[in-house]
């Protein structure tokens, strides 16, 4: 075998192996989606959106309580997390810059991003649930806010730093005060990137179960009082899917399907924003 032949063979082997590995990865993704869609669509009905939870065996049970609970918990977390994250990211990029304090905040938020979410659930249990004496929707939102914060903070920081410093200087050179430079020029330049960060942050927390088990817990019926335990799609799914009743398992599939579609569309939307920005 000549040197060239050997090289061609090794080349092909590497190519085939890496292609196969990629296919395995994609294969699992489509397998998951396929199973979800088949079982999910099968379980979907109008009742899902209009009925609350019911004991096993009842015809008209649904996920209305979990959908509304999920929306409220994630919504409140977004209301807290987005402004906090954007302001903190603005501090890092525009004020702290390369200072010790800013670098420390960056490091800590990177660590927080990879912290197991169940630990954050336990933390919120200790600081909110235990003093209150009971689970609550608020506690769930606090846990999700803490998980969301570092994601939005870091994307905001990164995206603001991508705005060329000459653009800031040009605004200063026209006599703009710093807050106007940030609000009118820097934010505008980083708009798409920040929005992407928000979408990805929301998508990340919307799928969390562990921190909610400790905090908002669950409720089989509709509750809109954030002071009380609250249903969420993820915890409901966990309870229903692990139950021995077939109709509850079906509801679990429906919850899984709805949640996945929601998170999938947020991710796709986020990626579209990134593409649009690059296309410019």
């Amino acid at each position: 075998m000549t040197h060239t032949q050997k090289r061609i063979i090794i080349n092909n082997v590497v190519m085939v192996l890496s292609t196969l590995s990629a296919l395995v990865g994609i294969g699992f993704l489509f397998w998951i989606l396929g199973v979800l869609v088949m079982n999910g669509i099968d379980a979907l009905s109008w009742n899902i959106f209009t009925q609350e939870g019911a004991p096993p065996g009842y015809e008209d049970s649904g996920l209305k309580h979990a959908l509304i609970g999920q929306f409220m918990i994630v919504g409140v977390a977004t209301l807290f997390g987005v402004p906090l994250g954007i302001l903190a990211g603005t501090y890092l990029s525009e004020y702290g810059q390369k200072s010790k304090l800013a670098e420390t905040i960056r490091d800590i938020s990177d660590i927080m991003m990879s912290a197991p979410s169940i630990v954050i659930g336990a933390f919120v249990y200790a600081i909110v649930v235990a003093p209150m004496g009971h689970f609550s929707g608020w506690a769930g939102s606090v846990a999700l806010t803490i998980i969301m914060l570092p994601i939005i903070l870091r994307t905001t920081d990164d995206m603001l730093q991508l705005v060329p410093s000459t653009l800031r200087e040009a605004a200063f050179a026209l006599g703009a005060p710093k807050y106007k430079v940030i609000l009118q020029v820097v934010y505008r330049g980083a708009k798409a990137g920040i929005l992407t960060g928000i979408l990805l942050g929301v998508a990340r927390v919307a799928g969390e179960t562990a921190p909610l088990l400790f905090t908002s817990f669950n409720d089989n019926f509709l509750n809109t009082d954030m002071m009380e335990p609250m249903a969420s799609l993820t915890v409901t799914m966990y309870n229903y899917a692990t139950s021995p009743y077939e109709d509850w398992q079906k509801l679990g599939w429906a919850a899984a399907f709805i949640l996945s579609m929601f998170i999938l569309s947020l991710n796709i939307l986020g990626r579209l924003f990134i593409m649009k920005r690059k296309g410019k």
Partner: protein
Amino acid sequence: MATIVDITQEKALEVNNFEFTYASADAPSIKKLDMPIAKNSITALIGPSGCGKTTLLRSFNRMHDLYPGNKYDGEILFKNRNILSPKEDLIKLRIQIGMIFQKPTAFPMSIFDNVAYGMRLQGIKNKTELADRVEKALRDAAIWKEVKERLKHDANGLSGGQQQRLCIARAIAVEPEVLLFDEPTSALDPISTAGIEELVVALKEQVSIIIVTHNMQQAARVSDYTGFMYLGELIELGHTEELFVTPKEKLTEEYITGKFG
């Protein structure tokens, strides 16, 4: 000592015993510099990379203050006051002394909003006044004809040369008394460059201009006075023609004849 031509006309700026030290440096980047800048004229600053010409230019509108730790010494007189004084109102100063950068810096907003930006900062809200002054600035910057049909379009859709003229329009819209140009054509093609040079010459009726350039031909084409800087010092300031034809300093002669730089 530097050879500095006697400027008989009124002066826009006077630099006296000026020193500048960057936060990260031990030694000053500009040393004991004296330099008069003539009013309603174009003064070009030339010199090899790192000679301090851009550093000096960015001192005139206190751009260095954006980054902590930089240090000024001496004085720069503008309208009988020392603009290096800590009491100087930087917002007012930067309205009076505008700046054009190396790369075009169109803001991510419409063409109209770009030009109106500085005026709005000053609190001008009257729509007709804004529209009139935007049009005048765009005309003065020789770009009105190209953009009048698309004032509401995103400024980033313009070509590099157009964006640079837009930035000039934005700067002159607030009616500054001095305009600082930091290598304004180094990112542009020859045709756009010629357009900007023509514009700079036309603008000296309204404002005093200081232009930093790497291109000696450009300095020779547009400026009335040329200052040659080397290692943080002003070596020679003269009438442009005299400086290029009969330089008084040996270093100047070596630089303009291409012996170093």
